[in-house]
């Protein structure tokens, strides 16, 4: 097969073998203005620890812009630039294209440089989905788009996004005397959509930094594989989810172990459930009830037992009926009842 896509060499990033073998250096450090226990700040730290110093980071509007970099102060060691709310895809593409052409023309030194653009769920799953989708089709530009999903527009005061779970209390969906459930949309399946819709994208993964080594290795793979890649990270948000900040780590574990947040990667079109999710799917560990996850969060404090049951049913459906549990929402029933052929 002829090759039409010319991909520049990427950095060689072997997986970190264990937490004890991690580099000590930090490229995103202290003094950001995030909440106590901010899991998204942790994602930033681990993301750039995984990438290393030869990286350029683009950050779209959101908590990780406003809180991390308030003018005249920054937490970034590596170069960082703001991009507009819906522009993480465009920022990754433009930066990568510039590096490619400037290196080709000899205007800057030819070397692999990581390009990472991050966005929140508002900037990614809502406003920026078009630009991200476009970037994932530009196979010749190396970049990673990382969506840190704290399940609301957390920076503007916790308004619901397309990534907010069903029924959650947000400032745009606060329960009232007559309507208890103001948010009736199910969370958008962003990673699945990106994997299914962009056949030339070589790597899509879901991560949760409660499993830091797993998450960092996914980032290293995404950066090394070449071409545009996408990672969706679920970040517990102590402010918007309303839980005591010290529970951030545990909340991420509960999201994975209850099956609400399946971990998987799609590498060169091959899908693999990973981490705890793989063990759940293999029957090695049992999913914990979503009740254990939901009742620890103030944003679900208005839920009745019926609401919790509905939530559990939807998660069960995701596991029991989806073509690939937690990933592809087509129903298995289709196979059981194939359309008649003449």
């Amino acid at each position, binding site marked *: 097969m002829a090759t039409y896509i010319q991909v520049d060499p990427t950095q060689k990033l072997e997986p970190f073998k264990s937490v004890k073998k991690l580099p000590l250096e930090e490229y995103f450090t202290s003094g950001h203005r995030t909440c106590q226990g901010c899991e998204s700040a942790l994602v930033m730290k681990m993301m750039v620890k995984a990438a290393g110093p030869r990286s350029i980071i683009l950050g779209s509007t959101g908590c990780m812009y406003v809180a991390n970099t308030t003018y005249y102060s920054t937490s970034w060691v590596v170069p960082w630039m703001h991009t507009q709310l819906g522009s993480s895809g465009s920022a990754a593409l433009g930066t990568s*294209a510039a590096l490619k052409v400037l290196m080709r023309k000899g205007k800057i030194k030819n070397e692999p440089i990581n390009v990472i653009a991050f966005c929140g769920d508002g900037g990614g799953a809502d406003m920026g989905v078009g630009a991200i989708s476009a970037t994932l089709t530009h196979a010749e530009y190396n970049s990673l788009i990382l969506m840190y999903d704290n399940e609301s527009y957390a920076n503007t005061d916790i308004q619901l996004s397309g990534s907010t779970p069903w029924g959650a209390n947000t400032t745009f969906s606060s329960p009232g005397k007559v309507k208890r459930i103001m948010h009736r949309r199910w969370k958008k399946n962003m990673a699945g959509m990106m994997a299914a819709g962009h056949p030339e994208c070589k790597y899509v993964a879901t991560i949760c930094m409660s499993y830091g080594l797993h998450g960092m290795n996914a980032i290293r793979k995404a950066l090394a594989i070449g071409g545009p890649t996408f990672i969706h990270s679920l970040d517990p948000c102590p402010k918007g989810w309303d839980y005591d900040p010290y529970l951030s780590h545990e909340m991420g574990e509960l999201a994975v172990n209850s099956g609400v947040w399946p971990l998987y990667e799609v590498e060169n079109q091959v899908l693999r459930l990973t981490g705890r999710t793989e063990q759940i799917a293999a029957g090695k560990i049992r999913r914990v009830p979503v009740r254990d996850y939901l009742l620890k969060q103030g944003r679900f404090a208005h839920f009745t037992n019926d609401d919790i049951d509905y939530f559990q049913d939807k998660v069960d459906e995701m596991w029991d009926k989806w073509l690939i549990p937690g990933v592809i929402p087509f129903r298995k029933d289709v196979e059981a009842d194939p359309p008649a052929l003449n």
Partner: protein
Amino acid sequence: MATATLVEEQRATDKTALITGSEAIAVACKLADVDVITAYPIRPYDTVMQYICKLVANGEMDCEYIVAEGEHSQFEIVKHACACGARVFCGSSGVGWMYAMEALTVTPALRIPMVAMVGNRALDDPGAFGVEHNDALTVRDLGWQLVWVDSAQEALDTALIAYRVSEDRRIFLPCAISCDGAFLTHSQALVKIPSQEKVNQFLPRYNRADLQLHPDNPITVAPQGNEDWVMEIRRQNYAAMERVSLVLKEAYADFDRIFGRSYGNPFFEEYETEDADIVLMGMGTLSTPVRVGIRKMRTEGKKVGFVRMRWFRPFAAADLAESLGRFKAVGVIDRDYSFGSPYMSGVLTTEVRSAMYSAPGPKPPVLGFIAGLGGREVTVPDVEKVAGAVYQAAEGKSQPLTQWIGLRE
């Protein structure tokens, strides 16, 4: 040896080609060795991207040519490329320019020297292809340099000048080159295409210097600001815009020296003004019917001149006011509108009136005319009608301050 000399000679000689305004800008991009270009379709500007596509496909130009999925991304992509040190080109028209508005706002704020072409087009609704200047004018307050050209030659030359001025470290502001839809973008004219050698002599390589986003230059760009900072940041852009006039004059002088083409006063061009009683003003290709009208009126003994604004931002208020003070009355023809503005006139009229207010010299009456909206032709009789009204004002007779010309009434 002989062959080499021949090639040298050919490269050193300007060629003449019959091309449209859009193609002239495409040629300028090639000569400027632009690094990253993003395209998205909308008439009439998009012909420039079709030409560039061919230049790339034919190996005449080496750049990243990216087709975006919307104007917002189109402008964001080049914004980021430019922040890394790439020379970039972009463009749009009408509502496409509007769709990119967020990116257009941040580009000057970030001191990104992007050069963009606006194929001027009426804003929706109704969807129309014809020229109107309101699209480009929406960025007039944001730190964009704005220039209107009236010929394909000027489009090419101005694009080269725009790169030189915008990428000057003293400036680092974006520049939009406005080309009237149809009349300039789609109309072919003979254009002198300068040699690569001359262009290289005129236009240094873009150097992002201390602001280059690269691991060797770890900077944090555009953190969130608050009331403690924003005024100071705006003041810096004010200073940069203030410096444009000086740098622009340097560039035009160099352009004349290297290419042998002089544009006189870079900011505005005067036609038949030396002995004029009254002058008309306008921007872009409006100059053609106005010049024809003036020649006709001069055969009838009417001494009418014309001042064509070239650079709208920065606006050469003092120079202009001094020049206009020589005449008995001024008629400004706007191919745009500013509903609800003082005297309900067009944008240029408001600016000219404002420039006259603080001028030390005489202040002739300034009449505003709105004409040619949505690409409607401005005819010679229209021009005569405008001149007639301006004569009335010059003679001290009362005239409405804003008049619509060429309207069915």
